[in-house]
């Protein structure tokens, strides 16, 4: 824990220094430009808190994306799942994963395509990219049905 403790400490110190000092001086700090690729940035905003930064999920809580045959399978099926949420395939219904996947219909086709491409090609995964047109097609097939 020593290294971790020091690292956390360093992170905390720099974060606090930035925030505390800016506040004390009455200035608003300019946010640092986010230079991450869009897929990584969007994964960080919408997926990471559950599936974690290494895509391994959390035991008994959220499934791993890393090495997932399902994640690397049919792109349209994956897009459908991310748009509608739930527990996915019949096989996964019997798993001991505790938490439900929320639907992400609030995200646009291009953003979802970035996320899906990212998770299919990161964490040791090696599947094809997903296009915004493919996501749009799957979304259109859902019609106006409410998200599950």
């Amino acid at each position, binding site marked *: 824990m020593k290294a971790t403790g020091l690292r956390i400490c360093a992170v905390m110190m720099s974060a*606090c220094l930035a925030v505390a000092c800016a506040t004390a001086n009455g200035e608003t700090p300019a946010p640092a430009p986010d230079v991450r690729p869009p897929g990584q940035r969007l994964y960080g905003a919408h997926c990471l*808190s559950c599936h*974690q930064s290494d895509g391994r*999920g*959390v035991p008994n809580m959220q499934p791993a994306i890393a090495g997932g045959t399902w994640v690397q399978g049919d792109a349209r099926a994956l897009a459908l799942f991310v748009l509608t949420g739930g527990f996915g395939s019949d096989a996964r219904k019997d798993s001991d994963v505790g938490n439900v996947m929320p639907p992400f219909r609030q995200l646009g086709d291009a953003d979802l395509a970035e996320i899906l491409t990212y998770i299919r090609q990161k964490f040791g995964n090696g599947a094809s990219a997903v296009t915004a047109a493919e996501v749009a097609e799957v979304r259109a097939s859902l019609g106006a049905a409410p998200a599950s």
Partner: protein
Amino acid sequence: MRTACLARVVSVALTVGFASTFAAAAFADGNDGLTLPSGFSAVVVQEGQGAARHLDVAANGDIYLGGRNGLSALRDTNGDGKADVVTPFGDVKGTEVRIFGTWLYVSDDVGVYRYALKKGELAPTGARETVVSEFPKERQHSDKTFALDPKGALYINVGAPSNSCQQKDRQEGSLGQNPCPFLEKYGGVWVFDGTKLNQTPANGRRFATGMRNAVAIEWNASQNALFAVIHGRDSIDTLFPALYNAEDNATRQAEEFHKIVDGGNYGWPYTFFDTKLGHRVIAPEYGGDAKKEPEAGKYANPLVAFPAHWAPNDLLFYAGKNFPAKYQGGAFIAFHGSWNRAPEPQAGYKVVFQPMKDGKPNGAYEVFADGFAGDMKDNSPSNARYRPVGLAVGPDGSLYVADSQKGRVWRISYAGK
């Protein structure tokens, strides 16, 4: 301005980083990589046979360990602390394990059962009896942890199968169901006669409500009262991004330590205790604006508000003979460790001691055992070396700790300086 600013930075750094770093530096050798206060040492009782949960230790030192892979009985035949005999038994895959008189009470997600403990037997050979069964099978917060009082009243934690009772669980912006229907059958403690067999949930009485998931539940014999540490809600940032950011989510929703009284209401899902503001707030699902307080006195305030997402998974009041006087009557809490603090640094993964006097906190909590998680690469819980999940006290007063990653069990004893 600069001085004040630096002072703030240093004080935060001291509480967050340096304290644990110094402890680690001083006692990192031995003890299986765990860091302990001066005078304490840890022995590995068993290396691990798969995810463990709770455990209890009999008067003769035999250890009964529960987990998702089933139950096992452990015996140290030569007094070196290591279990030489490990005997799996029974067919209950779950969490709780408690010795009560001549019985071993255990639970899985849908019921509480018991086995007779007979003299001379390590693993019980008698038939499993059902005390309560037919709780609905749920995916979320389903561990039926429990406590027994000396008269045999059985207090079962029935966690809510939901994060915050949204109309759509864990879905961005979804509002709360009002009233929350889960509270009729979940989200509280139900009390049963623990000496009667073949009961169903209908035989129980709701003892307390508004408890999301009180995995860490314990009868305090010296106070003749029930206590629990409750898992607080997740994801205020991703569900309500206009109100909260990732740092808020990682730090504000307390893990609440309460004395649980008959008829008590502890505020889930309508509120949570905000550790930043130091008071209870209305949950965003129920019209909260990150500040608004509920009606005064409606929900109990916690005895101690522990940091967000640390995941309190077991509670124990120390009454053993081995530890120094300051530990008497105090509370040990096993914090399983966070997942929902990501992308902020994960936290928890430690055993904490909360000094208590007359059933009330007596000073600040202290980290008792740390170093379980190791480096935890990528800030990812899967990479934790160990995660403390169960606590028990042996006949000599040693504290036993069980781990959910590998099923490791440690015995922590005090030998003085």
